[in-house]
């Protein structure tokens, strides 16, 4: 919409010609200048500029929906009103059905906790035919660290759905729906993203998994201005992929050590030196999610996997529809299974802290 050429917007001929003569071709060019700048540049009166800008804005602005019509669309057109069930009862209940469509869900946790296992299970669930409760579509799995194991995925399938998988050829059909991409660098990842966008609609892709996002940006020397967030454009792109195709996008993230003076307070929160020294939470958890606060704002659902005294815990740390709750889990032959469907309530910012105790 932003790149729509002004010549196609139905402006009166005279003013449209003036825009073109001054090399203002798209809506983006026109709206990036203030009305006075346009007046000077185009050499036309204020009234005319105001009318032209109002017209361009109206055409560029996307159409509106009432919240009611959105809800009705979701309920009518989408599987389970737009959710992919994870088959973990407690998690699905907390997430109002499962991993939501159209938004980015993040899995973050220390190494070896089970993020890739979770992703494999989700890929399996999405490729199941709809008659068995899956999404019946293709899955694109972007495997950056070469951790994808199709043997493990099929093992999960046999273990969780024994009656289905013993049917002749079903395993092959479902494994055939999972497409694994292994980009060697961020640049080839960007190329793949462009390809993905085209193929998403054509080939009934129902799930996109990126494992892991942090690995793509680590160890890479960035040319250009250091002020720039290297993932800025990619974040928007992935979100827009999720939204226009209405599919769930699951991204895994790594953890990194917390720097001593990590910013966690506002200027009006006065903290005396002694308090900072004795703050027990600082000793306990020295891990934070990688990729920074900009990424943290961009994801809609954040699931934190951690380990406390050898017990693995999956917490819903950020979600607009669920309370902060955690579930203890184990890794079994059928993937992840919860020890109990009754969650443990997470108080306050505890949901966002990441522990790694007792995990060998």
């Amino acid at each position, binding site marked *: 919409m932003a790149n729509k050429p002004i010549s196609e917007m139905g402006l009166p001929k005279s003013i449209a010609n003036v825009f073109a003569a001054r090399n203002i071709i798209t809506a983006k060019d026109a709206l990036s200048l203030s009305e006075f700048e346009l007046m000077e540049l185009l050499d036309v*009166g204020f009234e005319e500029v105001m009318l032209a*800008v109002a017209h361009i804005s109206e055409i560029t602005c996307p159409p509106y929906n009432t919240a*009611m019509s959105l809800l009705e669309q979701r309920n009518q057109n989408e599987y389970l009103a737009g959710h992919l069930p994870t088959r973990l009862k407690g998690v699905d209940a907390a997430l109002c059905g499962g991993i939501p469509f159209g938004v980015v869900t993040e899995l973050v946790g220390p190494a070896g906790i089970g993020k890739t296992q979770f992703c494999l299970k989700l890929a399996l669930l999405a490729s199941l035919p709809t008659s068995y409760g899956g999404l019946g579509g293709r899955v694109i799995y972007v495997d950056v660290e070469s951790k994808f194991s199709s043997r493990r995925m099929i093992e999960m399938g046999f273990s969780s759905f024994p009656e289905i998988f013993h049917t002749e050829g079903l395993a092959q059909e479902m494994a055939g729906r999972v497409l694994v991409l292994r980009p060697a660098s961020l640049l080839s990842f960007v190329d793949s993203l462009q390809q993905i966008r085209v193929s998403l609609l054509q080939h009934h892709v129902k799930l996109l998994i990126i494992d892991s996002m942090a690995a793509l940006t680590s160890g890479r020397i960035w040319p250009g*201005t250091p002020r720039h967030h290297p993932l*800025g454009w990619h974040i928007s792109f992935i979100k827009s992929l999720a939204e226009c195709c209405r599919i769930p996008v699951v991204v895994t993230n790594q953890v990194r050590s917390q720097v001593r003076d990590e910013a966690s307070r506002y200027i009006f929160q006065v903290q005396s030196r002694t308090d900072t020294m004795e703050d027990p939470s600082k000793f306990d958890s020295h891990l934070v999610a990688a990729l920074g606060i900009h990424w943290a704002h961009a994801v*809609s659902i954040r699931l934190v996997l951690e380990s406390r005294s050898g017990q693995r815990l999956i917490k819903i*740390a950020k979600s*607009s529809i669920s*309370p902060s709750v955690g579930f203890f889990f184990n890794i079994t032959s059928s993937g992840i299974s919860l020890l109990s469907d009754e969650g443990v309530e997470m108080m*306050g910012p505890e949901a966002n802290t990441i522990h790694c105790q007792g995990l060998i």
Partner: protein
Amino acid sequence: MEVSSLPISASHRGKLISAGYSSLSSLSSVSPSKLAQDLKISENEVLEILKVVSARKWVDKIENRSHAIMNGAQTAWDILHEEESSICITTSCSDLDEILGGGIRCKEVTEIGGVPGIGKTQLGIQLAVNVQIPADYGGLGGKAIYIDTEGSFMVERASQIAEACAEDMLEYNSLLRKDSQACRVDKPPKAFMDNIFYFRICTYTEQIAVVNYLEKFINEHKDIKIVIIDSITFHFRQEFEDMALRTRLLSGMALKLMKLAKKFNLAVVLLNQVTTKYNEGSFQLTLALGDSWAHASTNRIILYWNGNERYAYIDKSPSMRSASAPYAVTSRGIRNSASNCKRVKLM
């Protein structure tokens, strides 16, 4: 009144001045054909210029004749009356309403920022529902525009909050208004959802376009009383090498939003993200978009964690003092913090 400040095209202005017409009075006595000859432009263009001139002159006449000392000014007493009779939009948390002086005010731009997961979108959705509370229950009975730049608006959550609000209204009705059965106003949750107009914005160009388009939209749809932008930051944090352009665009947008708030008597709520800033030897959290943006809003509220509780802090307000209040995000929406009551029930 000088010709050099007329809102006409630069070349016309230049021609007028070089032909010797530097003040409006000099244009009043000249005929259009003579002017066309002097300036070497067509008669139609001259007529356009004279139209602008006469519009400006009419405004001048009003200035001289009006009883107020200055055109467009309002006395402080009138403003006080207006403010006292205006209704605020409640946040459903009485502690928060108290430090805000009643709630979110109309005719003002309020910026709300915080770390991810603190409840900014929750507050935005709660306000979009609460603005629709009918006047009989002390609300504005208006409609809401929700401009979503990040895709964080979840319809299921809006539906939950709307249902809870409708239930609360019914409860209020049965508890306190047993005598006046006649004026019962029933508002089903569906009605709440019908009155939230949702725009999904994917680039900063679309963001500027929608702010420009709002004036026409609000003229067509009466009763819009709140515009929520969630979040104002997202598209301006990336793809901008030219920081000066970013500042210009943001301040232009802020001015337009302020104008909208004043003209249509509605509240504008902007949700912002956080970033880190190096200040006095350590890194601290602060709202994004920089120091010049900090001046754009009338009120600034920062949401933060204090121990295990969510707090809101009034960072900037012309009429309320800086204070903090706790609040909670429950399955029914934003409510008072239940620090010594029963724990929040899981769904």
